[in-house]
């Protein structure tokens, strides 16, 4: 089961948002920054979407920031888009909203079937988020301001945590997080990560043949391998993991592996990648 590990990592990264400003208040600067850009013991790691914005807005490519891309891109290259499924603080909130929604649907409306997400086709969902990323980057280049940072959920959440710790207040940007989480709760579950998030869109582009991915061991990977289709029901990105594991939307969250069962204790779905063949 991957779920306990994933939750531990998610909660750890959520707690880190609050721990960084606390450490900094006691003048311990081993870790500084927010999830827009972190510095851990001299090692830089920045949100690729934010860096893309800064490069386009300023028109400068020889920036010291390009080195800050190394670590996030290396992580994405080896482990795939794990930032989204395993680390992003917004994804944890989104998971919570989705669970609440499922609970309310079952308890209040008596509807137990798996919900169909907005824009069900993975192709269209990918198109939507890359159009958003491209449009935002173009806008940043035109007006000279990294505009997509105003809607970067992990960065905003991390900044709000810092403001909360330091100044015991919240800024106007918290309204944005509240709005998208309410929208996910009430109308469009999982819509932000699937259809818009610029950070996720950037990270999914970093792919190689050896990148960690979900693959099925079934003889015919194109066909559905069991009747239950539990993996498709579990997937937060609306994929059919038995055949769409390598899709750009996949976050390697391993929910499908947890859900997969052939009734005999072994699983057809599994990770394939850098360390695993």
């Amino acid at each position, binding site marked *: 089961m991957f779920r306990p590990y994933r939750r531990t990592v998610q909660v750890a990264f959520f707690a880190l948002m609050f721990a*960084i*400003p606390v450490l*900094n208040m006691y*003048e311990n*600067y081993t870790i*500084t*920054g*927010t999830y*827009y*850009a972190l*510095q851990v013991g001299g090692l*830089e790691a*920045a*949100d690729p979407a*934010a*860096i893309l*914005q*800064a490069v386009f*807005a*300023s*028109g*400068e490519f020889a*920036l*010291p*920031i390009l080195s*800050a891309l190394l670590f996030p891109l290396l992580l994405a290259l080896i482990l795939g888009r794990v930032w989204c499924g395993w680390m992003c603080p917004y994804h944890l909130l989104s998971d919570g909203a989705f669970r609440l929604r499922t609970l309310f649907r079952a308890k209040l409306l008596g509807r137990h079937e798996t919900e169909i997400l907005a824009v069900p086709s993975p192709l269209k969902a990918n198109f939507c988020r890359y159009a958003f990323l491209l449009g935002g980057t173009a806008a940043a280049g*035109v*007006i*000279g*301001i*990294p505009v997509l*940072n*105003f809607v970067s959920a992990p*960065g905003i959440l991390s*900044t709000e945590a*810092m*403001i909360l710790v*330091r100044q015991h207040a919240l*800024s*106007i*940007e918290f309204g944005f997080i509240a709005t998208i989480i309410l929208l996910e709760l009430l109308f469009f579950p999982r819509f932000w990560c699937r259809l818009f998030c610029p950070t996720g869109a950037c990270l999914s582009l970093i792919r190689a043949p050896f990148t960690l991915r979900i693959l099925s061991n079934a003889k015919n990977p194109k066909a559905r391998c069991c009747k239950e289709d539990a993996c498709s029901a579990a997937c937060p990105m609306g994929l059919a993991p038995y055949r769409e594991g390598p899709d750009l939307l996949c976050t390697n969250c391993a929910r499908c592996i947890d859900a997969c069962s052939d009734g005999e204790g072994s699983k057809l779905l599994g990770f394939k990648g850098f360390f695993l063949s």
Partner: protein
Amino acid sequence: MTRLGLTFLENRLRPPGAVEEERFMALCIRCNRCLEVCPYGSIRRAGWGLTLGTPFVLPDSKACYLCMACTGLCPTGALDNELTDPDAVRMGRAKIDPDICYSHLFFDMDVVPEDAGDRIGALCNTCYNVCPLPNQAITLKNNLLPIVLEGCVGCGICVERCPTRPRRAINVLPAGMGKTDETGFHFRKARKHYEEVSVQGETDPKEALKGTDLLERKQKIDASAPATDFDFPYELGDETED
């Protein structure tokens, strides 16, 4: 590149080492790292508009103490990472308002007149006493009158400590605020007028001295030098009529 979000306000400064404002707005990814490491809590976060999330120092509540903790940490170079020398910071330049400054009032009115009201002159000199770079950024003329010098880095400690209320007698104009191409109506009008005149006259506007060149030439004019020989095609009488 446009000038969106470029608003300069008195006593609203970018952190030390900030690049030129237009570039700063493009480079700053609002990660707020500078704000986090500031040990004095001097750096604030802009809360509205296009500058939302970018760092500012508001010296009338908390000035920058030039510890230089933030400059090296900026991940995008919106703050110059190489800058470690507080003397080389140029956040802005302080400006003294002689109508409010206690020392200036004292100097102007040796005996405080009856109609001065609450404008009390006094030997204050707080700005000089708190300045981290005394005699480099600010000096006392005749040991009495504070005068801001070229070395002022614009940290704003004088603003924070200035005793006059509600308005401070010393305020910092942020770097970039006084850019000549942004000064507005009168400058543009004067330039247009100059160009028109240059076209009508013999001077080619492209070759005419402008900006710093013109300023340099004007500064070289020396009143004590021998007078220039002018053509004066009139005869002067021996007597002058009163």
